[in-house]
């Protein structure tokens, strides 16, 4: 019977093309508006590293001002000082650990045809690449001995390798940054975790850096941070060493921990570390250290902002309004077909058969509305991209994948079926004798 109902649905939609078109349009516009916001929320709140997000923990140590927290109500700072970061890194209490910060370098290509240009860079430690599962096109990252010996090595992103070396395997070759020569150890393949979880403090929706080089080299060469730096105490003196010894937080520290026991042990370790610092006159606040895995950290930092949630709510409200319109249109359509329904009932159709017929027809409207809605969602996202194109990170928020496409169609079908319930119920109540004229 399903095929029969499909056939009747097609005939019915063709019979009233204007009414059918209006219903499809109502659902499509609602789905388009709603799914545009769902898409942005989905991308913002997505898990950027699903297979490892439960193993990676962001570390927060509360060594902040005794008179006020780093953030209300009682949040520790979201980054760490060099003193604490380097101490935890040296202790090596976790399976793996990464200490890094965002900076920038001027790339000076050997090719005289290519003018020097600035690139976003990250000074980091060896575990960055295996911990965050960075895919390599050629070569690899560096090992811990490089961190210790402060060798000048570099990992390049695919785009910059294309720009400087024309996409060739440049492993073993050198690049010059700010006058210093670095040997290339690896080329990263396409890699763009959204949100950029490993450094949420510096806009989580920008692309990953194009250049990665050892933290020890960066600190040794006194390369400043280009990310957020917050201090609760004045820096005692001018100069790089005074900055390193200050209570300013500017580095992100991540550890890899497997299982609750390791998390508990590491929490105990950082608490003990805080106590040791208290003994030295630092860490004046009560113990308040945090370990958050990737998704906890993103929730804690409210990566999905409140205004996006509000827009999402408005999107669903708009869909609801469109559905109310669809209900009215479906009701009008069904009431115009009472003669047909009466006749079918007289010829032996049960209420269930009538219900099925009109629900299938509503499902077809939903699928069509969903397909058009996907197109409108795409247009909506492109509109946002054009409107806010000046911000590079917007391109990362308006990506659309199959999950969103299928969700849009599914939502459209569910919405159409929900909208059809009342009109279809009314159709089932039509009395078989009511519209058969004189019989």
């Amino acid at each position, binding site marked *: 019977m399903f095929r029969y109902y499909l056939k009747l649905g097609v005939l019915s939609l063709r019979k009233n093309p204007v009414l059918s078109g209006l219903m499809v349009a109502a659902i499509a516009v609602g789905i388009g508006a709603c799914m545009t916001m769902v898409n942005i929320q989905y991308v913002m709140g997505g898990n950027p590293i699903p297979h490892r997000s439960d193993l990676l923990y962001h570390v927060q140590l509360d060594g902040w001002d005794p008179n006020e927290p780093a953030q209300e109500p009682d949040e520790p700072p979201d980054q760490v000082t060099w003193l604490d970061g380097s101490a935890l890194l040296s202790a090596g209490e976790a399976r793996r650990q990464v200490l890094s910060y965002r900076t920038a370098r001027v790339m000076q290509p050997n090719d005289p045809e290519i003018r020097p240009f600035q690139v976003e860079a990250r000074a980091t430690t060896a575990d960055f690449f295996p911990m965050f599962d960075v895919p390599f096109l050629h070569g690899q990252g560096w090992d811990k001995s490089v961190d210790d010996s402060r060798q000048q090595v570099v990992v390049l992103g695919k785009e910059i390798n294309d720009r400087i070396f024309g996409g060739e395997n440049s492993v073993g070759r050198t690049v010059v940054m700010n006058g210093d020569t670095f040997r290339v150890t690896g080329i990263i393949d396409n890699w763009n975790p959204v949100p950029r979880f490993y450094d949420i403090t510096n806009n989580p929706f920008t692309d990953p850096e194009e250049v990665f080089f050892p933290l020890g080299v960066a600190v040794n060469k006194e390369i400043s941070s280009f990310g957020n730096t917050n201090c609760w105490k004045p820096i005692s003196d001018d100069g790089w060493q005074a900055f390193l010894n200050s209570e300013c937080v500017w580095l992100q520290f991540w550890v890899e921990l497997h299982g609750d026991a390791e998390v508990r042990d590491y929490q105990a370790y950082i608490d003990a570390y805080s106590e040791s610092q208290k003994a030295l006159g630092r860490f004046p606040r009560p113990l308040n250290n945090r370990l958050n895995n990737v998704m906890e950290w993103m929730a804690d930092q409210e990566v999905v902002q409140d205004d996006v949630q509000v827009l999402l709510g408005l999107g669903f409200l708009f869909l609801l309004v469109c559905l109310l319109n669809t209900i009215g249109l479906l009701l009008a359509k069904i009431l115009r077909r009472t003669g047909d329904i009466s*006749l079918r009932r007289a*010829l*032996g159709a049960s*209420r269930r058969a009538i219900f099925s017929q009109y629900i299938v027809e509503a499902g077809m409207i939903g699928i069509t509305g969903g397909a058009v809605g996907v197109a409108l969602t795409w247009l909506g996202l492109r509109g946002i991209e054009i409107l806010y194109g000046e911000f590079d990170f917007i391109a990362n928020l308006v990506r659309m994948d199959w999950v969103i496409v299928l969700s849009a169609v599914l939502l459209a079908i569910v919405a159409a079926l929900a909208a059809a319930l009342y009109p279809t119920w009314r159709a089932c109540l039509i009395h078989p*004798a009511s519209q*058969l004229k004189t019989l």
Partner: protein
Amino acid sequence: MLQMHKVSKIYRTDSVETHALREFSLTVSDGEFVSVTGPSGSGKTTFLNIAGLLEEFSQGTYELDGRDVSRLSDNERSQVRNEKIGFIFQSFNLIPELDIYDNVDVPLRYRGMKAAERRERIMRVIDLVGLGSRLHHLPSQLSGGQQQRVAIARALAGQPRFLLADEPTGNLDSAMAGSVLDLLSEINEAGTTIIMVTHERTLARRAQRNIMVSDGRVSTGASNLHVATAANA
């Protein structure tokens, strides 16, 4: 056999009660061709609606083909309508967007028949009414007489025990009306029980028995068959 005993039907609104049928009793034997006549508002439409299980009644009993159909559920009534009763309407009531084949197919679809069996039945009844060459014509492409023939084919496709016809020639000219009546007679001779409501006495005479309905009751029954009225039941 169709057997109604003291069937009453009362339509109620907030302030008015209308007695459409009053202790209406009637027996129609298998294979009969019965015409029902009466003035407008006499209750013949209500009688046919109840006989066809399109409406419920207020009091009395009704047996169709030996089964008490007074207390059937909506689903059961649909099933009985589908399997035992064929309807022919004055205005044909064909579905305009379906071609002849698909119109005749409608009641068979609800019976859950296999496609091959449906096809065999449809082809047979469409040939019977002489429209074998018009299978894929839409109703709007046919004359009134041809449309009524399609309606008859649709009614016959399910091989019903009873055929209920409401003014089947009301929208046809006399030539077409005669041909439709001839067809109904043939169908009756093949064994199908027919109850036909008509205003025209000449058509009513084509039936084996004529029932006059007046004021919701059977007023007279002119025939050689048994008629039970409320008065003598």
